[in-house]
């Protein structure tokens, strides 16, 4: 990509990427470390919680994405700067009107059952499989007005209007390419083939003992000669976080991902010489955590009250003392790894005095106990650290006279209450999927106020914000999009519809002998065809 604007896709009909590029890059990197890739070895790692099925699209939960991304592949991969790299598509071109995307596919790719991979598999995966199953993919692929198959290994998509982040949807985590010969014309969710996934990836499914392990083996017919290097990948199901820590520490597993290891256990691994702790690799998702505020309620719908809450909370303390530097303080509604993040955006600074002034100005006077207002906070039931966050928030808000009562429930109950708007405050974290139009707008635009989780459940509505997000969505010019998103960030920070807290980094901990683990903006969701154990 040669575009001057960083993080934006190329303009004009640039034919980009060459089939051998990723392989060479990997070898170069390996040689730079003085190690040539070595064949052999079994990588034992973990998966929490256990996925229900291993077919991407049928299920898109975190652990499914982590493990099934070794079985299936996407058309493209994305660097830590979210630039596209070739995978099943070896090159791609965008037409001058930015509506037609033409992709040249890798030849000689085989499915794990030996059948050849063709453009029809790509058409089917996008237009039928994910269109029917996956809500996010549906939202974007509905913009496709026309698909043309130009021979076995060439396909083009024409959009009804320009959509600049379109290519991001071709990552395996958004749109895994699935075999048309197995799924076409079937009930996708209930297809018996879901028990034994068939992909094009470097590892094929061997065995899954529920509650115990998932076992993948090297696919000998993989399209990159000589790869993958590992013989097997075994995902062990270890439900308890302390047991996971001990399993990693004793070498029984060699890799942890996402939130396998509790933040408070990470510093210990950082001091051990045989482990590497990597904090990159989640740029595509850029999980941003916030306090969600139900704006249908009195007091909470007043932006001054929300601003006061933001002033009362020390985001740096949360990142350093609760997350032990496995999180960064948030600085904007668009996370710093996401495209079009405004580096000059500033959230209200930690200043309890300013909070008190705002509350005074609202006429919320303290009662004899020093309480100005009482709210309920529904804790996020995703583990120990989120409980600690709730307790910190209760304390911090009490300092400025806001009394917080904590409410607890389990994951199922939490989602239900969030979706039904049955909360006052709750904590949430949401993926941004690389581009504000894909993962940020949904939280704030008023057309997305729905009784469904991860929509605009807080009920925030600002016509100007709607207009800006709308304009940015179809604006083809990256520079103009950047300007629109800059304005959105300023507007959102002025309104404080949510109290943004931290960006989660989800550190990956791995055995030092394991090489090439984190190279992409999707980190542990890479297909691992270049991962190997150094001697």
């Amino acid at each position, binding site marked *: 990509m040669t575009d001057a604007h960083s993080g934006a896709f190329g303009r004009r009909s640039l034919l980009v990427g060459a089939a051998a590029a990723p392989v060479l890059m990997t070898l170069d990197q390996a040689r730079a470390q003085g190690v040539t890739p070595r064949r052999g070895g*079994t990588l*034992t790692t973990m998966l929490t*919680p*256990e996925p*229900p*099925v291993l077919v991407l699209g049928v*299920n*898109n*939960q*975190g652990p499914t994405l982590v493990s099934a991304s070794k079985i299936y592949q996407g058309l493209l991969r994305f660097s830590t700067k979210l630039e596209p790299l070739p995978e099943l598509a070896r090159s791609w071109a965008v037409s001058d009107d930015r509506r037609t995307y033409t992709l040249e596919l890798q030849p000689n790719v085989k499915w794990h059952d030996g059948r050849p991979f063709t453009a029809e598999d790509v058409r089917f995966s996008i237009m039928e499989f994910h269109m029917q*199953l*996956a*809500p*996010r993919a*549906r*939202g974007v692929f509905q913009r496709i007005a026309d698909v043309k198959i130009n021979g076995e290994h060439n396909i083009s998509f024409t959009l009804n209007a320009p959509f600049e982040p379109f290519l991001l949807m071709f990552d395996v985590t958004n749109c895994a390419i699935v075999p048309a010969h197995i799924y076409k014309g079937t009930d996708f*969710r*209930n297809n018996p083939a*879901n*028990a034994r996934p068939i992909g094009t990836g470097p590892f094929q499914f061997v065995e899954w*003992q*529920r*509650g*115990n*392990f998932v*076992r993948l083996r090297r696919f000998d017919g993989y399209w990159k000669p000589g790869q993958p290097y590992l013989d*097997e990948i*075994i995902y*062990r*199901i*270890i*439900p*308890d976080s*302390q*047991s996971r820590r*001990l*399993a990693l*520490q*004793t070498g*029984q597993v060699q890799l942890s991902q996402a939130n396998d290891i509790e933040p408070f256990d990470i510093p210990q691994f950082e001091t051990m010489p045989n482990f590497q702790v990597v904090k990159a690799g989640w740029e595509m998702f850029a999980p941003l955590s916030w306090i969600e505020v139900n704006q249908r309620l009195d007091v909470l719908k007043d932006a001054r009250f929300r601003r006061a809450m933001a002033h009362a909370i020390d985001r740096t303390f949360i990142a350093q003392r609760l997350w032990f530097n496995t999180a960064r303080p948030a600085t904007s509604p668009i996370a710093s790894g996401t495209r079009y993040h405004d580096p000059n955006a500033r959230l209200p600074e930690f200043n309890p005095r300013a909070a008190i002034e705002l509350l005074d100005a609202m006429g919320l006077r303290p009662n004899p106990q020093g309480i100005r207002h009482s709210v309920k906070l529904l804790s996020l039931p995703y583990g120990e650290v989120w409980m600690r966050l709730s307790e910190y928030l209760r304390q911090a808000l009490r300092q400025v006279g806001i009394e917080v009562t904590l409410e607890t*429930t*389990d*994951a*199922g*109950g*939490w*989602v*239900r*209450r*969030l*979706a039904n708007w049955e909360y006052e405050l709750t904590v949430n974290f*949401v*993926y941004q999927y690389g581009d504000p139009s894909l993962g940020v707008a949904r939280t704030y635009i008023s057309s997305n106020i*729905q009784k*469904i*989780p*991860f*929509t605009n459940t807080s009920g925030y509505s600002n016509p100007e914000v709607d207009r800006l997000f709308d304009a940015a969505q179809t604006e083809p010019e990256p520079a103009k999009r950047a300007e629109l998103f800059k304005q959105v960030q300023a507007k959102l920070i002025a309104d404080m519809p949510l109290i943004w807290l931290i960006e989660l980094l989800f550190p990956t901990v791995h055995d030092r002998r394991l090489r090439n683990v984190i190279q992409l903006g999707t980190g542990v969701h890479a297909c691992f065809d270049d991962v190997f154990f150094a001697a």
Partner: protein
Amino acid sequence: MGAGRLLRFLARRLVKAAIVVLAIVVFQFVLIRLAPGDPASVIAGQSGAADAEFMAQLRAQFGLDRPLHEQLWIYVKGVLTLDLGFSHRQQAPVAALIWERLPATLLLTGVAFLFAISAGVALGVAAARRVGRPTDSLITVVALTFYATPIFWVGLLLVLVFSVWLEWLPSFGMYSVGADLTGFAHAFDVGRHLILPSITLGLFFLAIYARLARASMLEVADQDFVRTAHAKGVPEGRIIRAHVLRNALLPVITFAGIQAGQLVGGSILVETVFAWPGIGRLAFDALLQRDYAVLLGVFFCTAVMVVLFNLITDLLYAVIDPRVEVA
């Protein structure tokens, strides 16, 4: 007792048991639905994205779009034909899921049960014979300690000592995945993995049996027939075995019967700490995921086990104490 009388007893008890199990099934069905959230909302939450069509698709797939009484009727009809239903979340029949996980739990809890009852009774007897002396105090203190310590903490401590420091035993799992061991080597491998979880689970119950056996032994030892045996010059060992212990065992058996009924469901914590692929965790995960079919299936299994072991316990009373008759 006559064979005919025993058969009549068994038939009557089995009919009662079937009614109890059926009532439990219906009750559980209703109880589960009182928990907030449903499988579709859990999946939407875990996927981090959803729209109305997605939710409707999932609810239709799970059969949740039908009225509740219809769902209940379908389920009860299934149970009556021993069909426990289908887990749409896991894309597998519930019976297969349970069957896959049951052996692991039975092995773990069975070994822990035998360890607890044999070691517990032995310690209880030893303590009773040296009542008031240092041995007695030591056993009582140790038993109380294990009884009072949280089970997951004991587990983690054992892992720390035997896996992390001494590196003798694996810290989790049921066998070495990827080693592809067979026959004796496989059994040995499972045995190594079994030691820590079964001791952890057993220690808690061991404490109960030790205390129960000790108290019961002391009570029986004071009775007239024991004094008579002493007066007759019966050897001490034989008095303990034949006179005291046999009579002191009744409360132990009562408790063992209760515990045996919990063999299927009582090991969730240990299964979690040691990543043991058993049925307790299947149930716990199903609860978090609102996988109703699996949860009801596990409840059904545990209910059957409890009823069955109650029956066996009642029969055992008659064997151990001739004064007790089945009726």
